[in-house]
């Protein structure tokens, strides 16, 4: 691995931080729109820089960060997606007090996620997790309602406990083996030992990351947080952090630090988490009446599908990256559409039934909803299919066909709630011939145009990734996302 300078590894993040600074200053002067554009531009710039770096083979630079190939691509996707979502939230951010500051915080969350995706040092991971968490608490709180305040506090308390567990795990590993918290040194220090302390540290760090992913039983913050947070904030917090954390988890557990741990331990730990999350997310989702809370449960289920990958080991890294890129985009669309519907139908009580006739009265939003829902289910012609195809394909080729079957059947049950959204959006309203539910827009609603435009852009991405492989195969995905 030829070394590349640390600065160039963190170049994308530095560019984005400039955007954050710009945003904070703009907000200070009360120019919220400028702040949002600044933050989004910073993120976009970072995405471009990361994209350029993807040509190089993966290399750990300065013992702290890994860049090149798949890692840079994930970092680029994280930053790019965040840029789109931040711009998509322009309508909301402009109308909410200290919107510029929130845009800056959103950018910080994205940058931290990108840092996690490229982190090769436990301390870098810790600091980024903390930054992402702080940004998350503020964003969840920013709806300024009783529910969001309470949800933010719960988010904080569990986050604090998770962080302390992470520190405990770091203490054990660093204290006993490492001259530094970098993966390279830790691995050298441990030199193949699988003594109980290593497995304990393995579990503690896995728990901290699983908490951030929202896997069962560490999921409790997700439903409350994503339901009461402003939908635009949830759009950012739902998908993007999960993508980064899973890539970090895969790199940490299957390649960098714990590769020689007995594979059955990895299979059992991550397999158990995966199946539990799938079951909880899918069945829990069925019982939900609120649209955003249902999406939170579906997030837990999607994490369940993703955690199948670490259970299989290193080769499944590309597969899970595709799965979660698709999920991040689809979740962003789903939440942005919720934002849009709230702006168009102020009387919407947030329930799925409340979406009656949205498909008919707002065709664009409806189309985005259809593609997002089908991508979350994993239907062919959408990106979600290829994610599940690769992950379950890996599971099957590793011999765990039953795990693939559980996953696929969970996706079938998940149609129970994804389909309910489409049912409400298109089948409700008067019997054929009648217009949708009374949706004569109240005079003062201003449709959240940025949100629906951002949603449509991401929808095209989902469709693009969904249909392109039919013609040009999956080889380009393999080269792009190779984490070799």
């Amino acid at each position, binding site marked *: 691995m030829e070394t590349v300078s640390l600065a160039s590894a963190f170049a994308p993040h530095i560019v984005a931080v400039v955007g954050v600074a710009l945003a904070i200053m703009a907000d200070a002067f009360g120019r919220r729109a400028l702040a949002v554009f600044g933050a989004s531009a910073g993120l976009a710039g970072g995405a471009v820089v990361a994209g350029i770096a993807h040509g190089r083979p993966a290399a750990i630079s300065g013992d702290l960060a890994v860049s090149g190939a798949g890692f840079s691509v994930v970092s680029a996707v994280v930053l790019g997606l965040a840029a789109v979502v931040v711009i998509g939230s322009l309508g909301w951010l402009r109308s909410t007090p200290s919107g510029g500051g929130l845009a800056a915080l959103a950018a910080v969350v994205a940058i931290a996620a990108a840092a996690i995706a490229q982190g090769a040092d436990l*301390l870098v991971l*810790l*600091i980024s997790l*903390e930054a992402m968490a*702080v940004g998350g*608490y*503020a964003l969840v*709180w920013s709806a300024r309602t*009783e*529910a969001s*305040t*309470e*949800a*933010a*506090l*719960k988010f*904080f*308390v569990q986050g*604090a*406990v998770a*962080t*302390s567990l992470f*520190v*405990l795990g*770091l*203490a*054990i590993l*660093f*204290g*006993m*083996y*490492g*001259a*530094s*918290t970098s993966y390279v*040194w830790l691995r*050298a*220090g441990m*030199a193949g030992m699988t003594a109980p302390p290593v497995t304990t540290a393995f579990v503690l760090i896995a728990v901290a990351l699983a908490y951030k992913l929202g896997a069962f039983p560490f999921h409790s913050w997700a*439903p*409350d947080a994503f*339901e*009461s947070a402003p939908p635009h904030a949830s759009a950012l917090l739902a998908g993007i952090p999960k993508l980064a954390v899973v890539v970090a988890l895969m790199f940490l557990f299957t390649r960098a630090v714990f590769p020689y741990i007995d594979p059955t331990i990895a299979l059992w730990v991550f397999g158990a988490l995966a199946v539990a999350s799938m079951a909880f997310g899918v069945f829990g989702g069925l019982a*939900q009446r*609120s649209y955003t*809370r249902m999406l939170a449960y579906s997030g837990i289920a999607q994490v369940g599908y993703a955690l199948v990958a670490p259970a299989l080991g290193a080769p499944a890294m590309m597969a899970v990256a595709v799965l979660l890129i698709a999920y991040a985009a689809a979740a962003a669309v789903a939440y942005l559409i919720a934002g849009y519907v709230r702006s168009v139908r102020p009387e919407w009580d947030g329930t799925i039934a409340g979406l009656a006739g949205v498909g008919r009265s707002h065709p664009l939003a409806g189309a985005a909803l259809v593609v997002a829902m089908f991508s979350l289910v994993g239907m062919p012609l959408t990106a979600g299919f290829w994610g599940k195809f690769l992950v379950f394909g890996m599971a099957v080729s590793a011999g765990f066909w039953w795990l693939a079957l559980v996953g696929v059947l969970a996706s079938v049950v998940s149609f129970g709630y994804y389909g309910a959204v489409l049912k409400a959006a298109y089948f409700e309203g008067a019997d054929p011939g009648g217009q949708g539910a009374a949706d004569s827009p109240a005079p003062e609603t201003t449709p959240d145009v940025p949100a629906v435009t951002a949603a449509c852009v991401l929808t095209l991405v989902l469709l693009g990734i969904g249909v392109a492989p039919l013609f040009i195969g999956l080889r380009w995905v393999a080269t792009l996302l190779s984490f070799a």
Partner: protein
Amino acid sequence: MNLLVVAMLLFSVGLYGVLTRRDLVAVLASIEVMLGSATLLLVGLGATGEMIAGTQVGGGTVEATGVMIIVLAAAEAAIGLALVVAVARRFRTTRIDELTGVKG
């Protein structure tokens, strides 16, 4: 071995505090106890002077990491207290078991 016991005992007491204390501020205090004990364990383990892989285990990096973690803990406390104040203002209470509005 008794450093491990002391640190872990403190960590567990802190965790128990978080899980059972009624008052938010007390919960925050317990979180500080947990983080403090974790830092103590980190530095303590770091200071065993073992030689691993040719480098002096501990030394500057242990202290530097210690500093980093203390700073993180402080930041954590700050945002925590900010949220507690926000809750207190809105709910007029700091009893954690009254905060069960969002569920299902």
